[in-house]
């Protein structure tokens, strides 16, 4: 499919780029030509293929410390998705105690067959949960890419935690954290 697209649209002008995006619903597919053309156009300086549709950080008391989703109109739907994923997270945490104790990735697959989102979870030792919602059509996203996204989130969250101006339990207002998250999200068209 990718090679076909390349021959169909040899020159990535502005128009063809937006058409391509509409076709694929996500701008995050990683093929080299898009990168080079994207950089040439100067539209997006971010080249990573790891694009999430919604990212949430949930405190150990299960209220959100931070939640951001890209299509602003559908925000409520993402909030609900994240909320329901918490149950699965709890289930997995209690199961892990029997199995090998390690930071486990939570791969849920399709929560809603119609919406086709993939929800990934990650729980730190301080019982803070990170949830990333990704569009299912973004098939090139691999396991270790998701892991690296979580790693970045965790590092950034640790920095927020160590910030003396931050009170644990407050919502996260840090601009640095914000920018890390934005780098991982789908660019709003």
């Amino acid at each position, binding site marked *: 499919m990718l090679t076909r697209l390349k021959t169909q649209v040899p020159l990535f002008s502005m128009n063809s780029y937006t058409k391509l995006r509409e076709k694929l619903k996500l701008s995050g597919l990683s093929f080299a030509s898009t990168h080079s053309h994207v950089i040439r156009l100067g539209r997006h300086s971010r080249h990573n293929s790891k694009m999430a549709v919604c990212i949430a950080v949930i405190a150990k008391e299960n209220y959100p410390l931070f939640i951001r989703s890209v299509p602003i109109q559908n925000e409520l739907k993402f909030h609900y998705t994240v909320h329901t994923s918490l149950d699965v997270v709890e289930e997995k945490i209690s199961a892990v*105690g029997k199995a090998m104790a390690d*930071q486990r990735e939570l791969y849920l697959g399709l929560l809603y067959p119609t919406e086709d989102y993939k929800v990934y979870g990650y729980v730190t030792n301080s019982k803070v949960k990170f949830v990333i919602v990704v569009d299912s059509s973004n098939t090139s996203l691999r396991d270790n890419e998701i892991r690296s996204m979580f790693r970045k989130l965790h590092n950034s969250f*640790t920095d927020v935690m*160590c910030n003396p101006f931050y009170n*644990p339990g407050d919502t996260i207002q840090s601009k640095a954290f914000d920018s890390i998250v934005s780098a991982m999200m789908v660019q709003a068209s």
Partner: protein
Amino acid sequence: MADEALFQFLHNEVIQYIYKSSEHGEMENGRCITKLENMGFRVGQGLIERFTKDTARFKDELDVMKFICKDFWTCVFKKQIDNLRTNHQGIYVLQDNKFRLLTQLSAGKQYLEHAPKVRKHNGGKLTCQALFIPGQLSPHEWFSLPLSLQYLAFTCGLVRGGLSNLGVKSIVTAEVSVMPACKFQVMIQKM
């Protein structure tokens, strides 16, 4: 971690500052210890977040306490806790035979003798458990609390903050019998 001496000097200055900035009132001693403990709490929370970033998930409470005794203590004080005892009912005693923050204080009797009343009151043991129950000590006895307990308050808070961030609610108190050895007693609170 930065050089130990830096933290020790800073810690000493923090204690001096807290006490200097609260000259008034006789009950201030307890409030100062609480302030120090709360400082330690917040620092402990942040430290734990950093240290547990790459470690595996903890299986149970005992695992958490072992982590505090080994990795956490090593990161902060460059040595491990020498002895961990528990009664398996939520009480843990961490014994450090050469507590870093106390080694620079004199091991002699000079400062400990300032508080004969407190020693008798607690049966020969100097504990700061009494600080959390204001009724137990009279104002005069507050003042005669030896300096060593002030030096333990921050660390008590450190342990409590670390545990709280790992999901374990607790009360941490400290005890000094022979300088520079000290014992930290952790009482887990069931919610």
